[in-house]
């Protein structure tokens, strides 16, 4: 019986050159894919209203119930019987930091998923970079690339990634300042409290975070049966289950509970959480994250996010 999951890209430590080559080989593919996906997102975009945080007037619009009273423009409203809100133009270039976790566990691909988790993470990262660069945002990658504002930010990010491969673990974030957005892509299999211990200080510094959890379908559905020896790709730890199928329900419950508690904790920080499976289309996650980034509440995705 063939194994369900496999390590797609074994990365022998120390073989930097081959790693760089393979990454370089991979990243153009990702670029093509990312551009294709970004185009689908943008082409489905009808008349983007550029209101948001800015200095200049953009428009008056009637006040709608539920909005903060402080946003009412009383001078305009005094002229007639309606109450108006002054919208400002979204103008200040926003810095968005992108980061993908490329730890060994991300190299996993089961036969139920179409690509490995790492591949999907890179695709999502570069696609986001492409979209956001078109919108004029500053794109950065902590530890890899300083924020740049350029049309070809995605290509530059890919180039930077070829030279400075991402390492595992959560990034060094000391250089991130001010009101930036942070997009974290990874599998987040560490215990939730460890993750939150890392992310909590970021949130307190005012960063808005968007977390995309990439999961392989095998990790979620646990399709194993019979005597099975499981190996952790990061630690090499081994665990033998006499009859794997009898723990399936328990495992699923624990897995979903971990995801739920992580999502709940992140929402408490004001961050967004988007779970994503590699057998789904990458554009699903991309659309969801993009809407979060553009200040709109995301559609209900399969993670049930607000």
């Amino acid at each position, binding site marked *: 019986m063939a*194994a369900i*999951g496999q390590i797609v890209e074994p990365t022998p430590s120390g073989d930097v050159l081959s790693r760089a080559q393979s990454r370089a080989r991979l990243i153009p593919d990702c670029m093509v894919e990312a551009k294709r996906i970004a185009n689908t997102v943008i082409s489905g975009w009808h008349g983007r209203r550029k209101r948001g945080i800015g200095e200049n007037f953009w428009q008056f619009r009637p006040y709608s119930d539920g909005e903060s009273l402080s946003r009412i423009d009383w001078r305009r409203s005094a002229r007639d019987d309606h109450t108006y809100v002054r919208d400002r133009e979204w103008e200040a270039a926003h810095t968005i930091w992108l980061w993908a976790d490329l730890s060994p566990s991300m190299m996993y691909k089961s036969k139920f998923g179409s690509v490995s988790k790492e591949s999907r993470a890179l695709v999502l990262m570069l696609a986001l970079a492409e979209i956001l660069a078109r919108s004029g945002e500053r794109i950065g990658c902590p530890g890899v690339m300083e924020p740049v504002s350029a049309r070809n930010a995605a290509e530059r990010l890919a180039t930077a990634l070829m030279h400075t491969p991402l390492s595992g673990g959560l990034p060094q974030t000391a250089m991130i300042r001010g009101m930036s957005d942070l997009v974290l892509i990874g599998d987040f*299999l560490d215990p939730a409290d460890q993750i939150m211990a890392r992310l909590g200080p970021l949130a307190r510094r005012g960063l808005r975070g968007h977390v995309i959890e990439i999961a392989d379908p095998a990790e979620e559905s646990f399709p194993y049966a019979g005597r*099975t020896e*499981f190996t*952790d790709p990061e630690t090499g730890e081994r665990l033998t289950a006499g009859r794997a199928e009898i*723990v399936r329900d328990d495992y699923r419950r624990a897995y979903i509970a971990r995801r739920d508690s992580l999502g709940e904790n992140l929402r408490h920080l004001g961050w967004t959480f988007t779970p994503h499976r590699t057998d789904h289309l990458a554009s699903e996650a991309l659309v969801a994250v993009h809407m979060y980034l553009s200040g709109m509440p995301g559609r209900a995705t399969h993670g049930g996010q607000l």
Partner: protein
Amino acid sequence: MSFLPFIFANPLMLAALVALPAIWWLLRMTPPKPVVEVFPPLRILASVLKREETPSKSPWWLTLLRMLMAAAIIFAIADPVFNPRSNTLSGSGPLALVIDNSWATSPDWQRRVETADALISDAEEKDLPVAVVFTADQDHNAVPGSALTARNRLAAATPQPLRPDRETAVNALKTALDGTAPGTLAFLSDGIEAADGKVMTELAALSPGNFRLIEGGKDQAVAISNSANDSESMVVSATRLDTAGARTLPVTAYDTRGRAIANGSVAFAAGEGLAKATLAAPFELRNDFARVGIDGLATAGGTFLLDDGFRRRRVALLSGEARDQSQPLLSPLYYINRALAPYADLIQPNEADMAVSIPELLAQKPSMLIMADIGRLPEETYGPITKWIENGGTLVRFAGPRLAAAPADDPLVPVTLRQGERALGGALSWSEPQPLADYPALSPFAGMPRPEGILVKRQVLAEPTADLSARTWASLADGTPLVTTKTQGAGRIILFHVSAEATWSNLPISGDFVEMLRRSVQLSRSGGVASEGAAKGQTLAPYRLLNANGVLISETGKARPLELSAGTTPVSSAEHPPGLYGSEEGFTALNLLPHDAELKPINASGLSIPYTSEPLIGAEAWSMKPWLFAAALIMLLVDSAVVLFMGGAFARLRMPAAAAIVLALAAGALVATPGQSLADDSKPGDDIILRQLDKTHLAYVITGEADVDRLSERGLAGLTDFLTYRTTLEPGPPIGLDIASDELAFYSLIYWPVSANAPMPSPAAISRIDAYMRSGGTVLFDTRDQFSSLSSGSGTSPNSERLQAILADLDIPPLEPVPADNVLTKSFYLLSNFPGRYNGSPLWIEAQPDNGSQPTGRPARSGDGVSPIMITGNDFAGAWAIDSNGMPLLPTVPPDEQQRELAFRSGVNIMMYMLTGNYKADQVHIPALLERLGQ
């Protein structure tokens, strides 16, 4: 097979060792190889997956352990035996077996049977006839027969609780063999030599071809041969057969129900065959000993039965005195109690009413009944007491004021008594207090030294008769009897002519008193004496017999009644096996060994032919089976522990431990807080009793005559008012009592207007009044007839006659008019007489002992206690009676209001006397006391 001292009982089982490689292969089996899967969320999986790491191979040492375990089990089933026995019977003649089945063989009887059985099997192999004779059986049938017969007889034989009768057995064998020399003569001996010591010589005289003496372990042959009581402990003599080495055995004494009540140990010194054990126990406890046994030795010899001679007697105590609790030193029973408590089982009545208490005491079958100063008993109790004495009871009476005042026709005194007592010494007498003379030779007190320092100041005197001196156990120096006795039926009446407390003599506080009482008690029958039925004869049927294991059984089998004759000590035999003879009420113990017997080993010296000494079978041949099984079990335990350890069971112990602590705490909390619940012990009528106890009430007897009762009620109401007005005593409303049914104990004084027209109270009611007076109450009888006072003698009024009828059944002390120095005249008012509606009748109270030594000038005589009876004829109630307006109902005679005032004062004095007793007598000394204190 015999050249090695090692054989397998089931050698075929060793074939199972072939299976060991298969077991090895099975033990090496491993689980299937797992599918290796990469799994990034391993941590989540680990949290839900129980750690079950089965190593792919069990370690070699575990496999070795399991192989050893299997091998041990196979070898154990194969049953290796060391030192097997072999058939060495001589084929020259029949096999003769002389088997002791005496008491000492019972611990290892089974091995003896196996030994004999093996010999019989050997004889069967060689086709020899077998003659078996059992030495302790009664039928010594030694006729040689087939091995089958011998085996059947062997199976039927049991150890007997007897000593072996070897002489008869050997003779029977000799007769049965009829000159044929036995090929092999085996003597399965208990190792104890009989008295003659010739058994080996006699057996050798049969000239057997092969003479074997087979003996078992001698350490079980320990017997108790005697026991004796000394002042502090019971000393038990024990003897043993095996004198080598020091040995200490525990000895326990049991009571009749088999409960261990005392322990000791018998320590044999090395080389000594005799030793004594001391069972230290209080005398009271030692009297309960019924059996002494050596622990761990279940033989008839290791058990020593005790009979009634050791049992202490049950003695019933009865007193006519009322003042028992408050002043114990004045109570006669106090001295008797102290004297007899170590030697006898004392019982006292629960009721003061003698008509109830005497049958109750007799129902407990006492050996002895002691009456201290009882002058007169209820009429219906004479019959049962007389019957009880004739059945063997011993009645001991002590004199006293009541007995001295009793009529002379008392059937329960040994001699005719003169009315009144004799005082020795005093102001009006030349005589001196008398010491005691030497005890007469026929007296049971003979042998005691003549007591020094005992002086009798007062005694009751016997009318001289011809046989008086023969019935005198002790007398005074002037020859007047002090202790007299009379046998009546099987029993005896003993009279001490002095009182049992120290007022008449100082005998009760001397050591001789204890010894005299003790000897009297020992004379009494040991078993309980019933007041019905007839006395028993001297042939005792077997009651409980010992079996060979030293257990008392009720099956008496062929045992015959034991005939006791004076001067001979019965010896246990086949007809009279050891045990208890008699009945439950009284029995004699017959023990296996005569007193101070000694166990000695078989004397085998000076024999004409050689003999071989052998142990019992099974002593040397021993099987390795249990050891192998034990080893296998230990290995199994080790293996289980190893498997548990490797499975990580001990690593996971921590969580359950915490949970267990929480559970234990919770359970402890549940246990520690049980709800307090109290039983409701209230009874109907409690509220009425509590109401009556709240206040003092005056009480009167309802005679049944309406106007007398009304007058009593009004009279006591008037006295109650007067008391409330003049004194601090504020009684409640008066209570009318039906003396046949109401509880009398709540009232200190009962006023009883005697009326000849009223119905006579029943004997039961009078008995209740008697008990009331005896337990501290006082009855004020009022005959209401001033014309004929009690002392006039001639022309008594009907009321006085009725009073005499009532008092006839009461045990009343001697009476006297209130003397001028009695506390009654001073208890509240100073009074010289006690008038009621009439004047002139004296108030009679219990006569106080005239000690004569008191100075006459004292204002009040100190007395102890309160008179239980007062008699007047002055009609107190008539003078006290008032109507609802407080006006007197009846005029006084003569009409003098001062007399009514005095009548009330008399009532007050009487009530104060009732409630304070002699306290007021002491109060008159207050000025002197204060002066002495310097105030």
